[in-house]
């Protein structure tokens, strides 16, 4: 089984459709290139809102973080918003220690991320 699996859907919240990327497994330097391709493909579709659901992620390293930060910059540039949802504690701690949570909003659930 792959170390990291990704799934992309476009559910609606209220009246608006958003891109939901669900990650599960472990995101590290060995699969960050794959993650980059997945995120870049979604960013290229210019969604207004993209949420990355981290609830299935057991581990995330700084390589994966850089990919997410890059996607965040791209979303910023095209006027979209990237949000992270439901990281487990080890991942949440990494986001805090790198201050990435100051650049990208982190929510406790996907529904919270898309509310308002």
């Amino acid at each position, binding site marked *: 089984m792959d*170390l990291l699996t990704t799934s992309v859907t476009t559910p609606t919240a209220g009246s608006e459709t958003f891109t939901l990327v669900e990650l599960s497994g*472990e995101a*590290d*330097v*060995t699969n960050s290139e794959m993650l980059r391709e997945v995120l870049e493909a979604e960013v290229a579709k210019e969604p*207004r809102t993209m949420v990355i659901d981290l609830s299935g992620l*057991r*581990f995330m*390293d*700084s*390589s994966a*973080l*850089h990919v997410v*930060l*890059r996607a*965040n*910059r791209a*979303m*910023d*540039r*095209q*006027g*979209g*918003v990237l*949000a992270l949802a439901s990281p*487990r*504690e*080890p991942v*949440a*701690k*990494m986001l805090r*220690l*790198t*201050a*990435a*949570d*100051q*650049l*990208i*909003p*982190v*929510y*406790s659930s996907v529904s*919270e*991320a898309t509310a308002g």
Partner: protein
Amino acid sequence: MTGATQGGRAAEAARLATEAADCTRCPLHERATQVLFGEGRLDARLFLIGEQPGDQEDKQGHPFVGPAGHVLDRALAEAGVDRDHVYLTNAVKHFKWQARGKRRIHQRPNGSEIRACRHWLEAELALVRPRLVVLLGAVAGESVFGSRYRVGEHRGEPRDAAAGDWEGQVLGTIHPSSILRGPDEKARSDAYAGLVADLRAASAAVGSLPRSGWCAGGWVCTCNAWVVRGTMAGNRSPGCARWSRGVWSVQKATCRLGRAALVQASRRCGVADRPATAGRFRHLAFFYATPGGYATEIAEFLRAGLAAGEAGFVAVPPDGMALVKDALGADAAHVEFADMTELGRNPGRIIVRVSDFTSKHHGRPVRYVGEPVWASRGPAELREACLHESLINLAFADTSAQILCPYDTSALSADVVADATRTHPLLLSDGRLRTSPEYAVPFRIPANCSLPLPPPPPDAMPYTYRTDLSEVRTLVYKHARDAGLAAARANDLVLAVSEVAANTLRHTQSTGTLTIWYDDDEIVCEVHDEGVIADPLVGRRRPSPDADGGHGLWLVHQVCDLVELRSGDKGTTIRMHMTIEGGDEDALTSPGALSYDCRANPPRGRLVW
């Protein structure tokens, strides 16, 4: 966690950019590719305003990436300002151009276009709230002061200004593109020197800006002839401030870099080469033998600073803190205190804490009392505390910090006291201040904290890895839990080891080895590979959150109780220690060095990351 506070400025910036994307306040939106907002730190103290995006900026979607941007990058580096720590934007957010053949030729925006765009500039200023705004050229000046502004006005001098809800200071200078238009080499070089001088004045006005790197050749630099080899992750302009992004080293050879980077390197190295007694930076070892002498001297040192309007910070063990507070009386309220046994448990975390304190006081001179060395520390901790004391000289050499480090001569061994004379340019004992004859000039890390580490226990088996990082994490987690580490701290160790092992993959072509051992008190994970890390301050300074690298060893230092790093011709060894605390639950196995061969017998422990 809620998004409103977490996302804060980033979310607000994203909202602004979304709104601006549809801007039709002036006709420029009809022909430009995109609205180009500013970029940089949303909490930057320095905010630079240019004119408008150029052809390259318009295509690439980033400010200052064209020819003028390259000039600005060089000038910023030469002025000692890290581009990652400033916010860069333009007075006008759309590219105004005229077709000439296939080329798009820049046209100066007119007054109404500048006024129309001021709305967005004010929003950016209100968001970032900088202390100082640098106006690059006439259009930037016009956007803040109106059409009467002239570039020569108050050039290089900060003055008070306001725009919308923002109040602060502005400083005028030329636009970097005007240098490129200079009629001859002499004119261009004079104009460039003027820009660098103005940027230096701007940097001085906001205090010393945090920097993300240090020239690795700091202790051997004698001339400008340097070459940089190795990886520069991010692959951006070669300024000294950016060299920390990855593994790199500097050696004496023919110059292959732009001149700005060379000047920068030699300037910083020059600072490190001084004995650090002549300038404002002072680093004193204070030898004391009685609690009374300790408290009196420290209180006097801090009071002298308070009287001069300087900020005071004391990080010492709790007993000492109580003594100092007593001696200071009411003055203690004006000094910040921290328990060094927590803050400096891993000495690799102290420098950033002192830098944070310095940054918080916006360039006010700082007095810092730091006692990272005490008698009950173990040998590895003492080695690392000694290394930290040595690195203080590099980290703060070009600041005006005054640092006093108490050493208890009644309890510390003679070796430890001798180390202090090697790591401190100045010594204070019995009320007498003198230059330390043992302090090495040019700066060198003392041998006893840079010698190879003592070998692991003989029965600890190395595990060889390359891309099987998940296996590495499984191993570390299992053994950390077996050793008695609580789940959260086991996960911390997993993150640290995984980051170091990922560096093997990123920076070397070969395998790395992981060795784990533990006893009643601690678990140690050692990673060795063929990579070379030349930056002695690696992981000890806060990387910009948006940086494309530099987070790995920062995380290692943040989560581990002690980190030992040795790097040289034979590769890099990083030893990560976690203390097993009384409170850590469910120790499962008897202590002892651990032997395993994971490939033959993979661990089956349940993972609860």
